[in-house]
């Protein structure tokens, strides 16, 4: 019987993930990192891992609120900044994104959310140059698989230490790393508009979907086998469709091959080439 508790050895996860950050930053001769702190759990964990890997003074936490962002988000980010003792910067995005919103009265919430996520990406990569630090990713395995992110927005980073941890595993590791309880306990939210929560928007809970994803992805169950294991057929269908539909967000755009040697197909090197 497959164990669906998704329990992880948090000491070992911590050791491997901090080692990864340290290796990826230092092997190219750098020492610093930049993390966008939303006030939520994923970025809190990424930031704490980066601090453990590089030292508090070497990690810049950037808060990027919009006027409709929940006040709790700023406050929770501050709690973490105080606890970790990292240098921080707050860059309001309201004045940057509002002019774009005003250009089109037909603009939707979804488009506004995507614009905000991409504006934050611009700021983080700009701060990356100022602080001479690599941007640490904050996307977990659940949202990467479900495509619950903005392409080239929150999904953009220089490296991602938590992208192979499901949301429920992120919570376990966050507890082990003493992330403040209000951050761990609040409902996950992209905080792009008031009252938004991930679980409302997705239509299921992370506890449910993580178990299903673990069977489908890690344990290689077929959708039919997942139904036989007790998951609702409609739920399994919706999740498998979502995984497939969002493959594009997990890849570099395909290059049309016409030469004998083409980047991505037969020009193959790791990023760590030569280091």
């Amino acid at each position, binding site marked *: 019987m497959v164990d669906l*508790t998704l*329990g992880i*050895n948090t000491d*070992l996860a911590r050791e491997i993930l901090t080692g990864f950050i340290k*290796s990826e930053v230092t092997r190219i001769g750098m020492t610093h990192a930049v993390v966008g702190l939303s006030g939520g759990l994923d970025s809190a964990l990424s930031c704490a891992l980066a601090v453990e890997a590089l030292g508090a003074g070497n990690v810049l936490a950037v808060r990027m609120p919009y006027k409709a962002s929940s006040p709790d988000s700023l406050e929770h980010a501050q709690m973490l900044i105080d606890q970790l003792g990292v240098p921080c910067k707050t860059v309001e995005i309201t004045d940057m994104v509002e002019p774009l919103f005003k250009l089109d009265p037909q603009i939707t919430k979804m488009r506004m959310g995507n614009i905000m996520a991409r504006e934050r990406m611009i700021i983080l990569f700009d701060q990356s140059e100022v602080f001479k630090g690599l941007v640490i990713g904050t996307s977990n395995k659940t949202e990467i698989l479900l495509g619950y992110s903005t392409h080239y927005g929150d999904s953009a980073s220089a490296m991602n230490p938590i992208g192979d941890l499901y949301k429920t595993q992120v919570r376990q590791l966050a507890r082990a790393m003493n992330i403040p309880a209000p951050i761990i306990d609040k409902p996950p939210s992209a905080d792009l508009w008031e009252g938004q929560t991930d679980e409302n928007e997705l239509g299921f809970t992370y506890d449910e979907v993580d178990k299903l994803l673990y069977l489908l992805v890690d344990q290689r169950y077929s959708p039919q086998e997942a139904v036989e294991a007790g998951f609702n057929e409609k739920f399994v269908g919706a999740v498998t469709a979502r995984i497939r539909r969002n493959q594009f967000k997990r890849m570099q755009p395909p290059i049309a091959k016409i030469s004998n040697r083409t980047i991505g197909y037969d*020009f193959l*090197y*790791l990023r*760590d080439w*030569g280091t």
Partner: protein
Amino acid sequence: MKLNLALAQINTKLGDVEANLAKHMDYIKQARAEKTDLLVFPELSLTGYVLQDLVASVAHQPTEDDPVFKHLLKASRDLDLVAGFVDEDSRHRFYIASAYLSGGKVLHVHHKVYLPTYGLFDEGRFFAWGDSIRAFDTRFGRVGMLICEDFWHASPPYLLWLDGADIMLFSSASPGRGLNDKEKLESARWVERVTKAYASMFTSFVAHANRVGYEDGLHFWGGATLFDPNGEEIAIGPYNEEALIFAQMDLNQLRRTRARLPLLRDERTNLVQKELNRILSRG
């Protein structure tokens, strides 16, 4: 007879043979200072692991005039060495290889016979498959070498055993995977379980050198081991950090264990051959 073994659990620079050679020379110096008889480096210790299109540019030949091997061969006058590299044959086929150097000479080169090409692995795309599994004589007795996936299959260690190897030297660049709530990664537990089992079943010494460090998101876990002919753990290296692990093999243990447990004496190779012939002839 005692053999002072050292296992070099190193990180490598991907595709930078010169830098990796310098690290080998440094570890050789440390091992020599501890009066080591035999120093074993991990799989592809001179090149790094996920080479992809770097394969041709990092290939070397274990000869005296090779710019890398001339240094290692010279060092092998003081202590025996096993190093991992990309071997290019005269017809430009590239192999994942381990060379055993002793007294300034190459005693044996093993080409990896099982190239994992599934899951996260893509070795069969970039390398040629080795086609022999041979034990060879050293000043410590008969030795056999295998590389990573080679010993995930039961037949290569078995063949080495029948070919006279009493000391098996395994080397790996094993990416860690399978984190759950257990103390160790699934991949680490699996490798430790089978290497211990080979030592027990073949009443032989089994040493394993695995590398550490990262290549992109892959992480190599280390945990070098030495098991004696009773299957007892003589040494285990730390996880996830570079280390030079020293361990002594009391080669007289082979005699004591096999006097108690004559598995080698009783092995019915003719029966194995007969049944293999029958199984394979079924077509």
